[in-house]
């Protein structure tokens, strides 16, 4: 044993750390979460300020980086008069429609598939390899094939998004089902529950927190697939709007579109968290 390896021992490091008088290493009474929010708000403001300043000083050409004011003005303009033949609201609605249609399809297929994987060995044997095959493929890779098969219409776009959402929904459901406490299942059976009643009254509600987590991940995945799906032969949608704007170098619309996508994603996350609080108030408390 060399001397250096001796000083590398964790215990030696802990002694060292205890000798230090770093203020933030001391335990302090926990204050409310407000301070973290203030810091976050300050960070966002700082980014905005740097953005505004560099635009004002013309550090970068406005073609590449429009000022926040220009983006805001464009937001108002597009919201009122539209861009490429549709108002901002129409673009948003077109995109949300695709994402939610895909989400519903992913739930209708993914939850039963996840249940099958979690409950039965045969189900796992059938669906696990299929999902594991599908999961790592980027949606852009199978988009062309889907267009060849299903054309360039709305179904193809929804299908691409739904495929991206399927794996998270099914795998989270399966994980939730596998984590169901055996004791709860036994309790239900000893109270007279049939197999189907166990699934309906014990397994599904037990797996609900996990299923909702899957939906959240799926919404994220779907929302990011959206832009790719809308690159092809769409006439409306946020992805299409950004793509068209980029072709004409209308950077302020591009930036505005990106911000709108971010804000909607944030809003969806917020809504799902509210839904979780209503549907599964017990999660994490038992």
């Amino acid at each position, binding site marked *: 044993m060399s001397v250096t390896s001796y000083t590398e021992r964790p215990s030696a490091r802990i002694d060292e750390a205890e000798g230090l008088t770093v203020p933030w290493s001391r335990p302090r009474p926990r204050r409310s979460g407000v301070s973290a929010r203030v810091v976050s708000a300050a960070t966002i403001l700082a980014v905005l300020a740097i953005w505004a300043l560099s635009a004002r000083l013309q550090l970068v050409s406005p073609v590449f980086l429009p000022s926040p004011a220009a983006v805001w003005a464009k937001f108002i303009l597009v919201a009122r008069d539209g861009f490429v033949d549709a108002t901002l609201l129409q673009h948003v609605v077109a995109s949300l429609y695709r994402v939610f249609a895909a989400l519903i399809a992913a739930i209708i297929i993914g939850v039963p598939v996840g249940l099958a994987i979690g409950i039965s060995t045969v189900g796992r044997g059938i669906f696990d390899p299929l999902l594991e095959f599908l999961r790592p493929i980027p949606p852009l890779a199978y988009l062309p094939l889907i267009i060849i098969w299903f054309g360039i219409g709305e179904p193809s776009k929804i299908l691409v998004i739904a495929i991206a959402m399927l794996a998270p929904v099914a795998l989270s459901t399966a994980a939730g089902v596998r984590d169901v406490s055996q004791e*709860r299942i036994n309790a239900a059976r*000893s*109270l*007279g529950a*049939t197999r189907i009643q166990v699934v309906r009254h014990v397994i599904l509600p037990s797996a609900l927190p996990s299923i909702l987590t899957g939906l959240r991940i799926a919404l994220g995945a779907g929302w990011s697939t959206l832009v790719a799906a809308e690159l092809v032969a769409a006439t409306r949608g946020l992805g299409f709007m950004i793509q068209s704007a980029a072709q004409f170098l209308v950077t302020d619309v591009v930036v505005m579109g990106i911000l709108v996508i971010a804000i909607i994603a944030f809003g969806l996350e917020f809504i799902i968290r509210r839904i979780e609080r209503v549907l599964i108030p*017990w999660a994490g*408390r038992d």
Partner: protein
Amino acid sequence: MQEWQAMPHLVLDKISIHYDGQAAPVVERVSIDVAKGDFVVLVGRSGCGKTSLLNVAAGLVAPARGSATIGGEPITAPGSDRAVVFQNDALFPWLTARENVAFALRLRGVKPSERARRADELLALVKLDGAGDKHIWELSGGMRQRVGLARALAAEPQFLLLDEPLGALDALTRERMQTTLLDLWTASRVGVLMVTHGIEEALVLATRIIVLAPGPGRVVRNFEPGFSRRYAAGETIRAIKADPAFAAARGELTDAIFEGEAA
């Protein structure tokens, strides 16, 4: 047949339990007979297979050899004639206390108003009046076990199978729960098969104590302490525990449990 219906027995006959992948059987040729109205308690050191035996009675584990019957019918699956209460209450946190108790009735398609009424009766029986709308996570450990008991009773079982139901509770709550258990047993006259680690608990509750020894699990002693009959006749648990006969029985039972164990 008439005789069975009048007095159903839960019978484990020369049961051997062998888990897959284990060389030795967990339990070998254990026979237990629980009549309706009996309070049979299984005690023994870890590994003696008492919970496995309870699971055979519940229909959750199939024995390698021997037969398990209830009222003469073989036990092949769990059923509401033998409701189980587990150590970790195994309540459903997405339901309120009342909905948990009413679970068995819901499975049978009893009308909501009727099952709420019945659940409230049972909650009152386990001294949880007015807690029906509470969520499970709002209840203390003792209250949760009371809900678990009420939920099992709602199935109108002939036998209650209790798997260390008081094991996770603090001493004071435990003592209070023992009284509740005895009251329920006296009132309902179900047959009880219970597993416990508590020696005093076994003595207070049981009409019959079966001492098991491990390696493989087998019956080494049978006690009929009779203290629970004295409680049913009106004596308090505290008075019973203060009786020198109780201390003597405790010593004898402790010796029986640890007999043959290497010091």
